[in-house]
């Protein structure tokens, strides 16, 4: 196990996510997994088929197949786990390891374990950690507390899905039986999964069950393995280990690259610049690698951008097919030739008449509708705002703290601000100063503010209307408020008090 070469994204997942992640791992390595699956289960299937054909114990063969089917799980698990750590687990080595794995997993063929409800999560502990006896049991207990419930969920889903696919194959074949035979042959066919114990029926059942299971068994093993890996990732922080190892690697690479630059720099300073124009591209990745991105000069950046844009991956070509009318004259010739007799011509004439009527009829209807709308304007015009008294415009000022009204502000704003400031309620003081200024500015300049206007919007709106001195004062107020509100920094006392004394000059006395 070498976490340096891990081929999947390691992160702590939720348990169901881990199940799906296991399925994804199986799909990536499906080719190798299915080779080993067929290598092991096909002989088992053939053996069972032989039992059905040559002995009278047909149903026993079904049982035989079902009992020994977990044998393939071990080698599949081996491939998934090897591929997880980037090891190349080819089918030959998997086959060579198979007898040993079969022996180790023999426990799952013992009667008490064959009915293990969470076999998919129990098997990795047994097989991959190589423990035996009490040690295995103790270790399994630690992991099972966390994942065996989900393992049971996977088993439940797996058995239902195998059943669904098994019946699905029967139904597909039934749908393909011609209707004439469906009464006799079809009913026989549908009886197979239900009750038939004929030899050929058992054979069919066995083969179709095998097809259904082939689709799902690797998935089932992968789901359990996903749960197991996720549990260990959480318990042992594998994701952190992977990140730490990468950090160390990156630092090591950075040091090497740094040395390389140090060696190359004197060469780059040669007068003919020969080396610098060559393939010396080390400085850029080195800079990036050392964590200091942001020292690109313009030329470097431009050439990098151009190189990236020249890449074909950024170009999109699309081929589309459209229908175009072929020559209209040809059409008419064809039409007249085909409708040679007079009766057809008459019918076409009637059709054309109706088409004109309907075409113009629609225009007439539209015109009538427009007339109707125009004639009845007296009725509907008032509803869309014409001819009604215009509503009084009241300038509501809603800042993010709530609505600012004349009643919510004290009469003597600068006096109140100064009082609050001295009482050490600095935040309230600056808030009042800001709200008061906005309120008075709106009254004085007729500024329009959107609802919940931000400080920046207020400032921009006031600056538009007020002269430079006033907008400068307003800007100072806003800045003091922003610093206090979001930066938790108070201005000097003198600044605040001077703003208070300046206030009447800009916004008038008490109101």
């Amino acid at each position: 196990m070498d976490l340096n070469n891990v081929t999947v994204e390691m992160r702590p997942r939720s348990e169901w996510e881990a199940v799906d992640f296991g399925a994804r791992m199986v799909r990536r390595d499906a080719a190798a997994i299915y080779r080993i699956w067929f290598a092991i289960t096909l002989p088992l299937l053939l053996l069972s088929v032989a039992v059905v054909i040559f002995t009278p114990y047909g149903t026993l063969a079904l049982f035989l197949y079902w009992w020994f089917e977990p044998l393939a799980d071990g080698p599949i698990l081996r491939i998934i786990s090897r591929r997880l750590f980037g090891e190349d687990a080819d089918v030959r080595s998997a086959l060579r390891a198979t007898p040993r794995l079969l022996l180790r997993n023999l426990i799952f063929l013992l009667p008490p374990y064959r009915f293990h409800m969470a076999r998919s999560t129990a098997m990795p502990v047994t097989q991959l950690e190589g423990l035996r006896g009490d040690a295995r049991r103790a270790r399994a207990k630690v992991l099972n507390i966390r994942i065996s419930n989900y393992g049971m969920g996977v088993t439940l889903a797996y058995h239902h899905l195998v059943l669904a696919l098994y019946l699905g194959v029967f139904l597909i074949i039934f749908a393909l039986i011609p209707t004439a035979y469906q009464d006799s042959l079809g009913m026989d066919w549908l009886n197979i999964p239900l009750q038939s114990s004929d030899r050929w029926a058992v054979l069919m059942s066995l083969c179709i069950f095998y097809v259904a299971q082939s689709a799902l068994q690797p998935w089932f093993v992968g789901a359990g393995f996903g749960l197991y890996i996720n549990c260990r990732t959480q318990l042992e922080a594998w994701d952190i280990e992977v990140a730490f190892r990468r950090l160390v690697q990156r630092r090591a690479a950075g040091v090497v690259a740094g040395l390389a630059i140090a060696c190359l720099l004197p060469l780059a300073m040669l007068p003919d610049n020969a080396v610098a124009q060559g393939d010396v591209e080390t400085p850029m990745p080195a800079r990036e690698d050392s964590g200091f991105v942001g020292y690109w000069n313009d030329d470097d950046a431009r050439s990098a951008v151009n190189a990236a844009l020249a890449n074909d991956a950024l170009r999109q070509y699309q081929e589309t097919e459209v229908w175009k009318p072929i020559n209209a004259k040809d059409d008419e010739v064809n039409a007249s030739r085909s409708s040679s007799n007079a009766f057809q011509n008459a019918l076409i004439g009637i059709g054309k008449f109706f088409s004109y009527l309907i075409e113009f009829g629609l225009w007439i209807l539209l015109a009538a509708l427009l007339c109707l709308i125009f004639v009845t304007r007296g009725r509907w015009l008032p509803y869309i705002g014409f001819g009604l008294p215009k509503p009084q415009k009241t300038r509501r000022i809603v800042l993010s703290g709530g609505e600012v009204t004349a009643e919510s502000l004290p009469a003597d704003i600068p006096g109140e601000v100064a009082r609050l400031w001295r009482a050490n309620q600095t935040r309230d003081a600056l808030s009042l100063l800001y709200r008061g200024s906005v309120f008075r500015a709106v009254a004085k300049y007729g500024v329009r503010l959107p609802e919940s206007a931000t400080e920046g919007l207020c400032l921009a709106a006031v600056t538009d209307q007020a002269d430079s001195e006033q907008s400068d004062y307003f800007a100072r107020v806003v800045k003091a408020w922003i610093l206090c509100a979001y930066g938790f920094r108070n201005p000097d006392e003198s600044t605040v008090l001077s703003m208070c004394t300046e206030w009447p000059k800009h916004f008038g006395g008490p109101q």
Partner: protein
Amino acid sequence: MLLDTTLNIGTPEGVELKLPAAGLAPRSLAWLIDALIKYVTIFVVMIVLSLFGKVGGGLTMVILFIALWFYNVLFEVFNNGATPGKRALGLRVMNTNGTPVDWSGSLIRNLIRFVDVLPGCYAFGCMSVLLSKNFQRLGDLAAGTFVVHDPGKRPLPKPNDAQPVPLLLPLTLAEQHAIVSFGERASMLNRERSEELAAILSPVFADLDAERLRGHASWLAGSGRSA
């Protein structure tokens, strides 16, 4: 490119959303729960309505129609993309561009459910989920939707209470994340394991142990820096 189950969506703001797609096992269990709810309800309603003669029969047909065709659609549109079964398994339906599923998406995916059911027990849907990229069944592929894991609010990790130790080394965001995450999870690891993890970093940091690394994590997470 490391293997993962997420569907990655880049927003114009340069944020990458990673939506973990949900596959066969949780989805089929969610379906099982929904089926139980649906059919038990229908059964009870039918028993009650059978007392009302022909009117009851008519009402039964209407309710059957709504329950069979619109159970999923209504829950998905009005309940944040989750039927009760999906909610129980922590799943929800989303469009593949990361937006919540709407009427058209939900209607399409649930109408095409009747193709997924073919040939009678979801065999087509099952194979489609096994084989498609984001675990989509045929209805999902047609509607441009998929099912994501949405476990809701997770409990916050225990805050790292170690004394902050400044870390003066340029680190990438992922590396900072790893160290901060170490600080949060160190209490859940056993002692040997945390020392082992810290030892991995010893070529880069001078005299580092787990406690000091937790301190660095605490500093990186922002505690101990004055305003």
